[in-house]
């Protein structure tokens, strides 16, 4: 049930559809250009006059990355991919768990120092990267966390947690307290009430937070380039810079790598989408 009233006139509906179409085109075209570039030889890509209809499509850029062309060395794309996957998924899962706990605390409890803590989490994001990067590096070096997946996961947690806390806090507040109280009257502990009642309703919020946290970690470059060295922990965005040499930039190669980065993200986003609307049938719960 979507609750869409059909009071709107047809021209309004078409206007909306047109608006969405234009917006989608603007969002997609610059990105699609990169994806298309990955399949073209360089001579057609940055050319003048522009080659609008591709004359040659080639897989050479991809073959080159994997070392299947004789003219260049391949890159350890498989390792980058695995690292990115492990690091992004782990930090997202933990960030959601910790964020859920924190968000619930802020949404449902009153306690001393609450405003300060909340503000503190927010302010932790005001620190600019440059101020943080070197001391963080030194500390991580002392702890032996440089070039480890674990080290990067912990840092991404700090990046994602304030955000997951805020989001889940917002979504928990939308859920009326009476629901949990009603369940507790029925015999559940607060803990059980949470899992049976509040968690399912907040699923859409948690799914959004999860997608964000994942995409942030998946695409993050600045911290990763600092804290990783080798294929032990190097992620795909850092791998993008492998296509730059002192003077030349292998743009078509970089685009091919970008496609490899985009596809898993697209697939995952598409798959998780259904949880975004799963928790919406509580229209019948209230009142």
């Amino acid at each position, binding site marked *: 049930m979507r*609750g869409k009233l059909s009071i709107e006139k047809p021209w309004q509906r078409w206007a*909306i*559809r047109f*608006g969405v179409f234009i917006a989608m085109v*603007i*969002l997609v075209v*610059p*990105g699609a*250009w990169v994806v298309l570039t990955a399949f073209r030889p360089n001579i057609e890509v*940055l050319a*003048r006059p*522009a080659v609008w209809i591709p004359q040659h499509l080639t897989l050479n850029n991809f073959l080159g990355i994997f070392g299947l062309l004789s003219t260049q060395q391949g890159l350890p794309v498989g390792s980058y991919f695995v690292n990115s996957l492990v690091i992004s998924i782990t930090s997202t899962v933990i960030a959601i768990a*910790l964020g859920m706990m*924190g968000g619930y*605390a802020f949404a449902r409890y*009153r*306690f001393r120092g*609450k405003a300060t*803590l*909340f*503000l503190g*989490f*927010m*302010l932790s*994001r*005001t*620190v*600019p*990267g*440059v*101020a*943080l990067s*070197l*001391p963080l590096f030194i*500390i991580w070096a002392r702890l032996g966390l440089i070039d480890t997946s674990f080290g990067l996961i*912990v840092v991404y*947690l*700090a990046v994602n947690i*304030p955000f997951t*806390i*805020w*989001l889940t806090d*917002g979504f928990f507040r939308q859920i009326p*307290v009476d629901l949990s109280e009603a369940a507790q009257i029925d015999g559940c502990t607060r803990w059980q009430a949470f899992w049976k009642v509040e968690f399912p309703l907040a699923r*859409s*919020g948690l799914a959004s937070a999860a997608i*964000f946290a994942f995409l942030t970690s998946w*695409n*993050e470059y*600045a911290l990763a380039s600092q804290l990783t060295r080798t294929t032990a922990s190097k992620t795909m*965005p850092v791998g*993008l810079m492998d296509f730059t040499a002192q003077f030349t930039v292998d743009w078509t190669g*970089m685009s091919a790598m970008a496609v490899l*980065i985009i596809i898993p993200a*697209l697939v995952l*986003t598409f798959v998780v*989408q259904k949880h*975004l609307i799963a928790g*919406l049938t509580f229209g019948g719960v*209230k009142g």
Partner: protein
Amino acid sequence: MSFWRSPRATPYLLLLPAIIVILGVVLVPLLVSFWTSFTGYNLTKPATLFQFVGLRNYQRLLGNDDFWWAFGRTIVFITITLNLEMVLGLGLALLVNKITWGQRTLRTIMMFPMMFSPILVGFQFKYLFNDAVGLINNALFDLGLISQPIPWLVDGALANFSIIVAEIWMSTSVFAILLLAGLMALPKEPIEAARVDGCNPWQVFRHITLPFLMPFVYIAMTIRSLDVARAYDMVRIMTNGGPAGRTELLWTLMTRVGYQNSQMGMANAMGYVSIILSIVFTFYFYRKLVGARTFMGGAQ
């Protein structure tokens, strides 16, 4: 009964792991770099870490024109991009919310720019805006709209315009998806009740939808205002501060001073002055957030 076993401790326990992570990853390095802003710390001479120079870095900073121009330009940059992203994101979310068919695909497409790493976006838009062989000039030429190439990344106003466009492309989706999730979490009864009572769509939007959304808007604004520093990588690739410093933002300046010139102490001093900027933004949105919450009810 000790405090930690009582029910009153629950919120603190829930928050404890998060607090530990933030302390370890943010606070400790922060204190270290705060210390270094009072030294003449040079990256390649570790001994200078203990060369205390007092307020010299800050004094030099306050008199440095380039820094203040970059500071001002950064404020303008953040203000423009945040506001435009919010408006565009809200519009996009409202539009997408109305479409029933193919929602899942639409939402995925809407998030497409979020799958591009900032550094990739930098190269992408650098080439798109390239005046000789870039796609944008080529399109304008072929459509007959221009006869001379437009120097997107060189002219003072155009260069700033270009980096703003790139940043908006990269991050509007964040606003859009947050607001869309908020729209979807909206209870339907008040809206239906209002419709039945005869309100037109604009009134429904203004008096019901928008207030419900405001907490989400402020959360999104706060998140983005602190996150917008991610644009650094993009700007570095596109213009690196632009011809003659026309697009110099705080972050490009700080990184150049800190890592290329190795003047870490000075760079950290810049960082701390700019933290004040972030804190101001954060406070502002926080107050608004609390205000919106009070209006809507919910646990204080």
